[in-house]
């Protein structure tokens, strides 16, 4: 019974580390798109996807460290990502982030 728990813990750790490596590769490929990307909307979408990968990475770190304190951080990254993406796309679309008087 004890050996079964030990093996399952090891399997969880190995799988988590493999997932972290894959997500890191995905972030590196997205960084290529951020640096090279021909237009600014490309860069905005790539930064958005990097933020989503960062949320996944925080979740995997929470699994690896056996803690629940990182759940707030995941939610926080999502919220800040949404607000940042909205602000950036509004700047690209209209030229201003906060309008003085909208219709």
């Amino acid at each position: 019974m004890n050996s079964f728990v030990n093996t399952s813990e090891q399997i969880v750790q190995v799988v988590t580390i493999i997932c972290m490596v894959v997500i890191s590769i995905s972030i590196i490929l997205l960084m290529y798109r951020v640096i090279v990307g021909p237009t600014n909307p490309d860069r905005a979408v790539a930064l958005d996807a990097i933020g989503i990968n960062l949320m996944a990475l925080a979740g995997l770190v929470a699994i690896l460290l056996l803690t629940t304190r990182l759940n707030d951080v995941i939610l926080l990254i999502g919220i800040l990502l949404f607000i940042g993406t909205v602000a950036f796309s509004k700047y690209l679309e209209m030229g201003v982030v906060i309008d003085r008087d909208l219709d």
Partner: protein
Amino acid sequence: MILRTTTTLIAFILFGFSIYLFLAGHSAPGGGFIGGLMTSAAILLMFMAYGHRAVTTILPINYRLLISIGLFIAVLTSVGSFLFGEPFLSQTFEYFYVPVLGEKELATALLFDLGVYFTVIGVSMTIILTIADDR
């Protein structure tokens, strides 16, 4: 149009999350600073979706006044320890019976956190609005 519809939903979630972070700061990650930042993020989202004039008519808050209110609350809770013959900024806690929630531990550190919360909202919204206002 899509942005406005999602803002009506997400702003409420953001306000709830900020209040949760503010109240959870005693025994979990969170506290006055990050709660105030989340609240100002919610207000900023409303500013981005609806424009300057609509939000200032909905939320007629003077953010500069909010800074001084927050600092005043913080100083008042610190000075309040003199009433009990304790040094400056000393804290205490007590177990109270709250009608719905049952027995809860209420600390005076929460009142100091409230001052931090108001100050952070005031400072961040003042910075953002003064930058957005120039023409």
